[in-house]
Protein backbone atom coordinates (compact mmCIF):
# COMPACT_ATOMS: atom_id res chain seq x y z
CA UNK A 1 0.00 0.00 0.00
CA UNK A 2 2.74 2.44 0.90
CA UNK A 3 4.56 1.51 -2.32
CA UNK A 4 1.48 2.35 -4.40
CA UNK A 5 1.05 5.67 -2.60
CA UNK A 6 4.74 6.43 -3.05
CA UNK A 7 4.64 5.88 -6.78
CA UNK A 8 1.48 7.93 -7.22
CA UNK A 9 2.93 10.82 -5.23
CA UNK A 10 6.36 10.60 -6.86
CA UNK A 11 4.94 10.57 -10.38
CA UNK A 12 2.71 13.49 -9.43
CA UNK A 13 5.65 15.46 -8.06
CA UNK A 14 7.84 14.84 -11.11
CA UNK A 15 5.00 15.61 -13.51
CA UNK A 16 4.32 18.86 -11.71
CA UNK A 17 8.00 19.78 -11.85
CA UNK A 18 8.16 19.10 -15.59
CA UNK A 19 4.98 21.13 -16.03
CA UNK A 20 6.55 24.11 -14.28
CA UNK A 21 9.45 24.09 -16.72
CA UNK A 22 7.62 23.24 -19.94
CA UNK A 23 4.39 25.25 -19.82
CA UNK A 24 4.51 28.53 -21.70
CA UNK A 25 2.00 30.51 -19.67
CA UNK A 26 3.41 31.50 -16.24
CA UNK A 27 -0.06 31.13 -14.72
CA UNK A 28 -0.16 27.45 -15.69
CA UNK A 29 3.36 27.08 -14.31
CA UNK A 30 2.13 28.34 -10.96
CA UNK A 31 -0.75 25.86 -11.01
CA UNK A 32 1.67 23.04 -11.86
CA UNK A 33 3.85 24.07 -8.94
CA UNK A 34 0.84 23.94 -6.60
CA UNK A 35 0.13 20.38 -7.80
CA UNK A 36 3.80 19.50 -7.30
CA UNK A 37 3.73 20.86 -3.75
CA UNK A 38 0.66 18.85 -2.78
CA UNK A 39 2.26 15.68 -4.15
CA UNK A 40 5.40 16.46 -2.20
CA UNK A 41 3.33 16.86 0.95
CA UNK A 42 2.05 13.32 0.37
CA UNK A 43 5.67 12.12 0.17
CA UNK A 44 6.41 13.91 3.44
CA UNK A 45 3.47 12.12 5.03
CA UNK A 46 4.86 8.79 3.83
CA UNK A 47 8.12 9.73 5.53
CA UNK A 48 6.23 10.33 8.80
CA UNK A 49 6.82 14.07 8.79
CA UNK A 50 3.29 15.18 9.60
CA UNK A 51 4.07 18.71 10.68
CA UNK A 52 6.30 19.43 7.69
CA UNK A 53 3.58 18.14 5.37
CA UNK A 54 0.95 20.37 6.99
CA UNK A 55 3.26 23.38 6.84
CA UNK A 56 3.99 22.62 3.20
CA UNK A 57 0.31 22.61 2.26
CA UNK A 58 -0.63 25.65 4.32
CA UNK A 59 2.40 27.88 3.80
CA UNK A 60 3.52 26.91 0.31
CA UNK A 61 0.46 25.70 -1.52
CA UNK A 62 -1.66 28.24 0.32
CA UNK A 63 0.12 31.50 1.01
CA UNK A 64 3.09 31.59 -1.35
CA UNK A 65 1.04 30.39 -4.33
CA UNK A 66 -1.52 33.15 -3.71
CA UNK A 67 1.34 35.67 -3.81
CA UNK A 68 2.53 34.20 -7.10
CA UNK A 69 -0.95 34.24 -8.61
CA UNK A 70 -1.40 37.90 -7.70
CA UNK A 71 1.92 38.92 -9.22
CA UNK A 72 1.31 36.89 -12.40
CA UNK A 73 -2.11 38.52 -12.73
CA UNK A 74 -0.55 41.96 -12.21
CA UNK A 75 2.43 41.57 -14.52
CA UNK A 76 0.68 39.55 -17.19
CA UNK A 77 1.50 36.43 -19.07
CA UNK A 78 3.12 36.84 -22.47
CA UNK A 79 6.23 34.70 -22.59
CA UNK A 80 8.62 33.80 -25.32
CA UNK A 81 10.44 30.59 -24.53
CA UNK A 82 13.03 30.55 -27.28
CA UNK A 83 16.21 31.54 -25.54
CA UNK A 84 19.49 32.09 -27.34
CA UNK A 85 20.55 28.86 -29.01
CA UNK A 86 23.41 27.58 -26.88
CA UNK A 87 21.74 27.65 -23.48
CA UNK A 88 18.54 26.18 -24.90
CA UNK A 89 20.41 22.99 -25.83
CA UNK A 90 22.92 22.92 -23.01
CA UNK A 91 20.38 23.49 -20.24
CA UNK A 92 18.54 20.16 -20.53
CA UNK A 93 21.82 18.34 -21.14
CA UNK A 94 23.25 19.85 -17.98
CA UNK A 95 20.13 18.80 -16.05
CA UNK A 96 20.36 15.24 -17.35
CA UNK A 97 24.05 14.95 -16.51
CA UNK A 98 23.42 16.33 -13.03
CA UNK A 99 20.58 13.85 -12.45
CA UNK A 100 22.73 10.89 -13.43
CA UNK A 101 25.59 12.09 -11.29
CA UNK A 102 23.41 12.73 -8.25
CA UNK A 103 21.76 9.32 -8.51
CA UNK A 104 25.14 7.59 -8.76
CA UNK A 105 26.49 9.61 -5.85
CA UNK A 106 23.56 8.96 -3.55
CA UNK A 107 22.68 5.40 -4.41
CA UNK A 108 26.25 4.20 -4.70
CA UNK A 109 27.41 5.92 -1.56
CA UNK A 110 27.77 2.72 0.40
CA UNK A 111 25.47 3.94 3.16
CA UNK A 112 23.72 0.76 4.21
CA UNK A 113 20.79 2.59 5.72
CA UNK A 114 19.86 4.04 2.32
CA UNK A 115 18.67 0.60 1.32
CA UNK A 116 16.56 0.16 4.41
CA UNK A 117 13.20 1.52 5.42
CA UNK A 118 14.78 3.81 7.96
CA UNK A 119 14.95 3.81 11.70
CA UNK A 120 12.21 2.06 13.68
CA UNK A 121 9.20 4.29 14.09
CA UNK A 122 8.53 5.66 17.55
CA UNK A 123 5.14 7.21 18.30
CA UNK A 124 5.22 10.99 18.18
CA UNK A 125 7.96 11.20 15.56
CA UNK A 126 7.41 14.32 13.47
CA UNK A 127 4.33 15.44 15.37
CA UNK A 128 3.78 19.17 15.97
CA UNK A 129 4.50 18.71 19.66
CA UNK A 130 7.96 17.27 19.24
CA UNK A 131 8.89 19.70 16.46
CA UNK A 132 7.75 22.62 18.60
CA UNK A 133 9.76 21.35 21.52
CA UNK A 134 12.86 21.19 19.35
CA UNK A 135 12.22 24.70 18.07
CA UNK A 136 11.95 26.15 21.55
CA UNK A 137 14.83 24.29 23.14
CA UNK A 138 17.56 23.02 20.87
CA UNK A 139 16.92 25.32 17.90
CA UNK A 140 15.77 28.45 19.67
CA UNK A 141 18.40 30.66 18.05
CA UNK A 142 17.61 29.65 14.43
CA UNK A 143 13.92 30.11 15.26
CA UNK A 144 14.47 33.73 16.35
CA UNK A 145 16.77 34.40 13.40
CA UNK A 146 14.04 33.09 11.08
CA UNK A 147 11.51 35.54 12.51
CA UNK A 148 13.90 38.47 12.05
CA UNK A 149 14.63 37.30 8.50
CA UNK A 150 10.91 37.21 7.68
CA UNK A 151 10.45 40.75 8.96
CA UNK A 152 13.45 42.04 6.99
CA UNK A 153 12.11 40.38 3.84
CA UNK A 154 8.66 41.93 4.30
CA UNK A 155 10.10 45.43 4.79
CA UNK A 156 12.45 44.92 1.85
CA UNK A 157 9.62 43.86 -0.44
CA UNK A 158 7.59 46.94 0.48
CA UNK A 159 10.58 49.21 -0.17
CA UNK A 160 11.34 47.54 -3.49
CA UNK A 161 7.81 47.54 -4.87
CA UNK A 162 6.60 50.90 -3.64
CA UNK A 163 5.58 53.75 -5.90
CA UNK A 164 8.62 55.98 -6.39
CA UNK A 165 7.25 59.39 -7.34
CA UNK A 166 4.04 59.63 -5.37
CA UNK A 167 0.77 59.80 -7.27
CA UNK A 168 0.92 60.41 -11.00
CA UNK A 169 -0.23 63.90 -12.10
CA UNK A 170 -3.91 63.80 -12.91
CA UNK A 171 -4.47 65.56 -16.24
CA UNK A 172 -8.23 65.30 -16.21
CA UNK A 173 -8.64 66.80 -12.77
CA UNK A 174 -9.48 70.29 -14.06
CA UNK A 175 -12.07 68.99 -16.47
CA UNK A 176 -13.75 67.00 -13.80
CA UNK A 177 -13.74 69.86 -11.29
CA UNK A 178 -14.42 72.74 -13.71
CA UNK A 179 -17.59 71.36 -15.29
CA UNK A 180 -20.61 73.70 -15.27
CA UNK A 181 -23.14 73.02 -12.59
CA UNK A 182 -25.89 74.88 -10.70
CA UNK A 183 -24.76 77.58 -8.32
CA UNK A 184 -24.23 76.70 -4.70
CA UNK A 185 -23.63 73.12 -5.47
CA UNK A 186 -20.15 71.74 -5.49
CA UNK A 187 -17.75 69.07 -4.67
CA UNK A 188 -15.19 68.52 -2.00
CA UNK A 189 -12.61 69.83 -4.46
CA UNK A 190 -13.87 73.40 -3.88
CA UNK A 191 -13.20 73.06 -0.21
CA UNK A 192 -9.70 72.06 -1.08
CA UNK A 193 -9.22 75.30 -3.03
CA UNK A 194 -8.83 73.80 -6.50
CA UNK A 195 -11.90 75.56 -7.88
CA UNK A 196 -10.51 78.98 -6.93
CA UNK A 197 -7.96 78.83 -9.69
CA UNK A 198 -10.69 78.42 -12.28
CA UNK A 199 -12.86 81.35 -11.27
CA UNK A 200 -11.47 83.74 -13.88
CA UNK A 201 -12.50 81.88 -16.97
CA UNK A 202 -16.17 81.27 -17.80
CA UNK A 203 -17.22 77.68 -17.94
CA UNK A 204 -18.41 76.42 -21.32
CA UNK A 205 -22.20 76.61 -21.23
CA UNK A 206 -24.47 76.70 -18.25
CA UNK A 207 -24.08 79.36 -15.66
CA UNK A 208 -20.92 81.45 -15.90
CA UNK A 209 -18.63 80.59 -13.11
CA UNK A 210 -16.89 83.95 -13.13
CA UNK A 211 -19.76 85.88 -11.45
CA UNK A 212 -19.00 87.23 -8.04
CA UNK A 213 -20.78 86.04 -5.00
CA UNK A 214 -22.90 89.23 -4.75
CA UNK A 215 -24.29 89.02 -8.28
CA UNK A 216 -24.99 85.40 -7.85
CA UNK A 217 -27.02 85.92 -4.70
CA UNK A 218 -29.26 88.52 -6.50
CA UNK A 219 -29.65 86.20 -9.40
CA UNK A 220 -30.71 83.32 -7.27
CA UNK A 221 -33.10 85.39 -5.16
CA UNK A 222 -31.41 84.38 -2.00
CA UNK A 223 -32.58 81.78 0.42
Amino acid at each position, binding site marked *: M*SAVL*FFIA*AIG*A*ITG*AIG*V*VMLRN*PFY*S*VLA*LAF*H*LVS*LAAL*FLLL*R*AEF*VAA*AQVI*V*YAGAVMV*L*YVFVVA*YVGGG*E*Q*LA*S*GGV*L*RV*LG*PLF*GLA*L*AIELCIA*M*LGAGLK*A*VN*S*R*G*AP*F*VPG*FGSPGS*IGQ*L*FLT*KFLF*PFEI*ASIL*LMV*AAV*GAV*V*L*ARRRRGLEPDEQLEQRVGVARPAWTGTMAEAGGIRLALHDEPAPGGEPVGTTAGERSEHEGGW
Partner: protein
Amino acid sequence: MNIGWYLAVSAIIFCIGAGGVLVRRNPLVILLCLELMLNAANLALVAFSRMWGNEDGQVFALIVMVVAACEVTVGLGLVVAIYRRQLPIDVDELNELQG
Protein backbone atom coordinates in the same frame (compact mmCIF):
# COMPACT_ATOMS: atom_id res chain seq x y z
CA MET B 1 9.71 1.94 0.46
CA ASN B 2 13.45 2.24 0.87
CA ILE B 3 14.96 5.61 1.58
CA GLY B 4 16.93 5.42 -1.67
CA TRP B 5 13.76 5.83 -3.74
CA TYR B 6 12.97 9.12 -2.04
CA LEU B 7 16.51 10.32 -2.66
CA ALA B 8 16.23 9.43 -6.35
CA VAL B 9 12.97 11.40 -6.66
CA SER B 10 14.63 14.31 -4.90
CA ALA B 11 17.59 14.23 -7.31
CA ILE B 12 15.30 14.17 -10.35
CA ILE B 13 13.23 17.12 -9.12
CA PHE B 14 16.39 19.08 -8.35
CA CYS B 15 17.73 18.54 -11.84
CA ILE B 16 14.45 19.54 -13.47
CA GLY B 17 14.61 22.77 -11.47
CA ALA B 18 18.24 23.40 -12.39
CA GLY B 19 17.52 22.85 -16.10
CA GLY B 20 14.51 25.16 -15.85
CA VAL B 21 16.59 27.97 -14.38
CA LEU B 22 18.91 27.70 -17.37
CA VAL B 23 16.25 27.43 -20.05
CA ARG B 24 13.50 29.83 -19.05
CA ARG B 25 13.74 33.59 -19.44
CA ASN B 26 10.82 34.92 -17.43
CA PRO B 27 12.02 35.83 -13.91
CA LEU B 28 8.72 34.62 -12.45
CA VAL B 29 9.27 31.14 -13.85
CA ILE B 30 12.90 31.20 -12.74
CA LEU B 31 11.69 31.84 -9.20
CA LEU B 32 9.32 28.88 -9.57
CA CYS B 33 12.23 26.69 -10.65
CA LEU B 34 14.23 27.85 -7.62
CA GLU B 35 11.30 26.71 -5.50
CA LEU B 36 11.54 23.31 -7.17
CA MET B 37 15.20 23.00 -6.21
CA LEU B 38 14.56 24.05 -2.62
CA ASN B 39 11.72 21.54 -2.37
CA ALA B 40 13.94 18.77 -3.67
CA ALA B 41 16.46 19.62 -0.96
CA ASN B 42 13.63 19.55 1.58
CA LEU B 43 12.61 16.09 0.44
CA ALA B 44 16.18 14.84 0.83
CA LEU B 45 16.40 16.38 4.31
CA VAL B 46 13.17 14.77 5.45
CA ALA B 47 14.23 11.42 3.97
CA PHE B 48 17.51 11.51 5.86
CA SER B 49 15.65 12.53 9.00
CA ARG B 50 13.52 9.41 8.62
CA MET B 51 16.61 7.34 7.97
CA TRP B 52 18.24 8.36 11.25
CA GLY B 53 15.05 8.53 13.26
CA ASN B 54 16.01 12.05 14.28
CA GLU B 55 13.82 15.11 13.90
CA ASP B 56 16.59 17.65 13.39
CA GLY B 57 16.31 17.27 9.62
CA GLN B 58 12.64 18.23 9.73
CA VAL B 59 13.49 21.38 11.65
CA PHE B 60 16.05 22.15 8.96
CA ALA B 61 13.38 21.63 6.28
CA LEU B 62 11.08 24.09 8.04
CA ILE B 63 13.85 26.70 8.19
CA VAL B 64 14.43 26.17 4.47
CA MET B 65 10.73 26.89 3.91
CA VAL B 66 11.10 30.18 5.81
CA VAL B 67 14.10 31.19 3.72
CA ALA B 68 12.25 30.24 0.53
CA ALA B 69 9.30 32.43 1.54
CA CYS B 70 11.67 35.37 2.12
CA GLU B 71 13.33 34.81 -1.24
CA VAL B 72 9.98 34.71 -3.01
CA THR B 73 8.85 37.92 -1.31
CA VAL B 74 11.92 39.88 -2.33
CA GLY B 75 12.00 38.34 -5.81
CA LEU B 76 8.38 39.16 -6.53
CA GLY B 77 8.95 42.69 -5.21
CA LEU B 78 11.76 43.04 -7.73
CA VAL B 79 9.54 41.75 -10.54
CA VAL B 80 6.85 44.28 -9.63
CA ALA B 81 9.44 47.08 -9.55
CA ILE B 82 10.74 46.03 -12.98
CA TYR B 83 7.20 46.04 -14.34
CA ARG B 84 6.53 49.52 -12.90
CA ARG B 85 9.54 50.96 -14.71
CA GLN B 86 8.24 49.44 -17.95
CA LEU B 87 11.36 47.42 -18.52
CA PRO B 88 11.10 44.12 -20.38
CA ILE B 89 10.42 41.19 -18.05
CA ASP B 90 13.14 39.03 -19.52
CA VAL B 91 16.39 38.07 -17.84
CA ASP B 92 18.32 38.17 -21.11
CA GLU B 93 17.64 41.87 -21.53
CA LEU B 94 17.96 42.82 -17.87
CA ASN B 95 21.70 42.37 -17.81
CA GLU B 96 22.67 45.83 -16.61
CA LEU B 97 22.56 46.89 -13.02
CA GLN B 98 21.94 50.52 -13.88
CA GLY B 99 18.27 51.33 -14.11
